[in-house]
């Protein structure tokens, strides 16, 4: 199902959380709403879900106006940031909830519910935990139960609010790859909110970068990373050096012992971080600007930079934006 937001605005008192945002989410895609806190991404997600009412604008489901439709009638699955699992119910009862509260005419029988819940538990690889309570699960397990619960009502749209936000780094990595595979399997239109650019770039088909209630850029992960349209997007999606004439990403700097390029400047090496596949250098140029440079291990081995020596740094690629500010 495709989703469209048309001129959506949401205010909280005098604070404008979402400012006249128009967006289209194509059916079957996994879209990331990426932005810092306060950028309006969660408000937009909640407006699409029907948990929040927009002050102005429309939400369309498959071209049909759903702005005034009650959250219960929208047919969305919502995974809450802190999962919102029902504490007093087992994993099984949590997942079965959406089926059991249906009006009697549409409510499946107990055997069907059981079969459906067990299928979902297998899908999220937790069938052995059916009778546990949420407090007895790990964070990653709770996350997957929340997802199974949202999927149980067969939503046409899946919305996830910071789905990996409260997990530790390793689990987060595993789970987001798993979510990507799951999406490839079930092909459900999905939108998730995140403030972690790495997560957005790795998992999604499309990234919507938001800032201060506005959409800064929409595009594939590669597009927004390689061709940022604004200085905000450039800055938000990875580290950046502000130099005369524009911005340079650390891996787009070249270092050499002679001045080989027209652009560029001499800079003194202050620190070299050798740990990891990528070598990170910190230099200070003649204008006392700190430059961050990244290069592959092989390249670093060939150059063999030393702390204290002067190297010539020039950008392979320089980006400039109108009214650029860092």
């Amino acid at each position: 199902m495709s989703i469209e937001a048309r001129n959506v605005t949401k205010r909280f008192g005098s604070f404008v959380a979402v400012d006249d945002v128009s967006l289209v989410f194509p059916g079957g895609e996994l879209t990331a709403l990426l932005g810092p806190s306060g950028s309006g991404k969660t408000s937009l997600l909640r407006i699409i879900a029907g948990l929040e009412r927009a002050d102005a604008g429309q939400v369309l489901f498959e071209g049909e106006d759903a702005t005034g439709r009650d959250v219960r009638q929208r047919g969305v699955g919502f995974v809450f940031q802190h999962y919102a699992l029902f504490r007093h119910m087992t994993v099984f009862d949590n997942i079965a909830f959406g089926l059991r509260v249906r009006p009697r005419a549409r409510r499946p029988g107990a055997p069907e519910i059981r079969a459906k819940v067990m299928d979902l538990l297998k899908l999220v690889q937790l069938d052995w935990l059916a009778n546990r309570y949420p407090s007895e699960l790990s964070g990653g397990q709770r996350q997957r139960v929340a997802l199974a619960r949202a999927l149980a009502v067969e939503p046409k749209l899946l919305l996830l609010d910071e789905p990996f936000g409260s997990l530790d780094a390793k689990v987060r990595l595993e789970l987001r790859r798993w979510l990507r595979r799951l999406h490839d399997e079930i092909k459900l239109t999905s939108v998730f909110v995140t403030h972690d650019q790495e997560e957005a770039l790795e998992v999604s088909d499309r990234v919507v970068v938001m800032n201060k209630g506005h959409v800064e850029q929409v595009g594939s992960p590669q597009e927004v990373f390689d061709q940022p349209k604004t200085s905000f997007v450039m800055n938000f999606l990875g580290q950046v050096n502000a130099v005369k004439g524009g911005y340079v990403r650390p891996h787009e700097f070249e270092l050499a012992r002679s001045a080989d390029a027209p652009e560029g400047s001499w800079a003194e090496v202050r620190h070299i971080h050798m740990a990891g596949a990528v070598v990170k250098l910190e230099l200070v140029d003649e204008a006392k600007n700190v430059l961050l440079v990244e290069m592959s291990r092989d390249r670093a081995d060939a150059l063999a930079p030393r702390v204290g020596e002067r190297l010539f740094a020039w950008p392979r690629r320089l980006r400039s934006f109108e009214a650029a500010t860092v």
Partner: protein
Amino acid sequence: MKRRVLTEPKPVRVALILVSLAFLAVSLVLPLALVFVEAFSKGAAAYAAAIREPMALSALRLTLLTAAIAVPANLVFGLAASWAIAKFDFWGKNALITLIDLPFAVSPVISGMIFILLFGRLGTFGPFLQGHDIKIVFAIPGIVLATVFVTFPFVARELIPVMQASGSEEEEAARVLGASGWQLFWRVTLPNVKWGLLYGVILCNARAMGEFGAVSVVSGHIRGKTNTLPLHVEILYNEYQFQAAFAAASLLAFLALVTLLAKSFIEWQTGRRASAGSVENEA
């Protein structure tokens, strides 16, 4: 309890514990023990007779009736008020919370008196009530009203923080999954706040059955008709029927002990849950 390494030297600890125990023994345990000792001072037969006496039984019935009206009334109110306050943002919310606590700041005697000013012979609605031959003050309705007033905040006060703490995410989740208003209230909200609710009800009930000052003002002390158990105790005591007074009082003291037991049980239940949760979060 947080893990603490530092503490006072052992003699100081022992001394403080002994001071506490002595103080509590003299000021709390001794009076409680005295109630039961005095109640049985003339033997079990006299005790049974004092309790089975018709006046005692009618006082007990009125006490139960009053609690049976006041507790559910304030329970329904407590649920409504805590739902409104915990789940919604609206203007004047803090003022509302303060107003709900108001009856706690009013002396029991004044709590009874305001109903006399309203419904008494010389009260605001006095002439009207007399004209229609309706009795509120010095009758059962007055006793019930005064009790409802005095026990008004108990359930709401316990429920509001519990509901606020449990947040609205689970209710929102239930809503997204298609639950109706009643379904989410019965299946999600109520199970989450049940201990807080029970806690409030127990405290409310203890006060409703034990209230003395407010009820004393509005009852008119008509024996066999408008006497609750605490008032019955007072009358017997003032008539120097000490053993009978303490026998009736022992029923109320027993109620107090049951209340304390139930209260501790709930604290133990909820305390254990909380610590299980925090262990989970640290893991």
